[in-house]
């Protein structure tokens, strides 16, 4: 099956710093999503980005599907950005409606005040 690798596994930053999280995947994908899991375990959609670049406030993401990677940028970090960031890809499949996400193991981000 497809492999999804995220780096770095852990990141500790001072409030106000910028960061870049990376997601590499081993095969062609149809879809890619970035999630933020907060300290209470809730998984929040950040971006649905199979290709191209999107921005939402202080966050932006870029996926280069031909080179099999995606980047998540966080600018001017705040303590509420702390948590685990997951990348997940859709492997596709031959069955109608067969849409299954494969998750990376995440990047744990800690923002220090």
């Amino acid at each position, binding site marked *: *099956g497809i492999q999804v690798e995220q780096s770095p596994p852990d990141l500790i930053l001072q409030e106000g710093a910028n960061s870049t999280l990376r997601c590499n995947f081993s095969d062609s994908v*149809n*879809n890619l*999503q970035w*999630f933020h899991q907060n300290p*209470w*375990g*809730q*998984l*929040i*959609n950040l971006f*649905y980005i*199979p290709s191209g670049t999107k921005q939402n406030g202080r966050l932006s993401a870029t996926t280069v599907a031909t080179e099999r990677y995606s980047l998540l940028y966080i600018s001017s970090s705040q303590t509420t950005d702390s948590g685990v960031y*997951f990348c*997940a890809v*859709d492997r*596709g499949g031959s*069955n*109608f*409606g*067969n*849409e*299954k*996400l*494969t*998750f*990376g*193991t*995440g990047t744990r981000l800690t923002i220090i005040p």
Partner: protein
Amino acid sequence: DVKVTQSSRYLVKRTGEKVFLECVQDMDHENMFWYRQDPGLGLRLIYFSYDVKMKEKGDIPEGYSVSREKKERFSLILESASTNQTSMYLCASSLRGRKPQHFGDGTRLSIL
């Protein structure tokens, strides 16, 4: 906004019990999913349903079954709970056609 609701936030059960985890979505999504999350392993797909009464096995279906009698509801069943099924369980839903998946708040299940 999409709302995916899981019936319990925390649940404690005993080994050998039959356990039901319920998930309801309010956006008429065709697809529904059950994942479990364990430290160091990320999220892994247990089962997937793309229509009422339709299901597909995910990566780790052993020890689990599912039921989808109505479009909005997807149930995960642990037929005979074991301690290695202690985990965080997350339900998700999406529209057909590789649209983004939306997650519930999760159920932390402990099997004693």
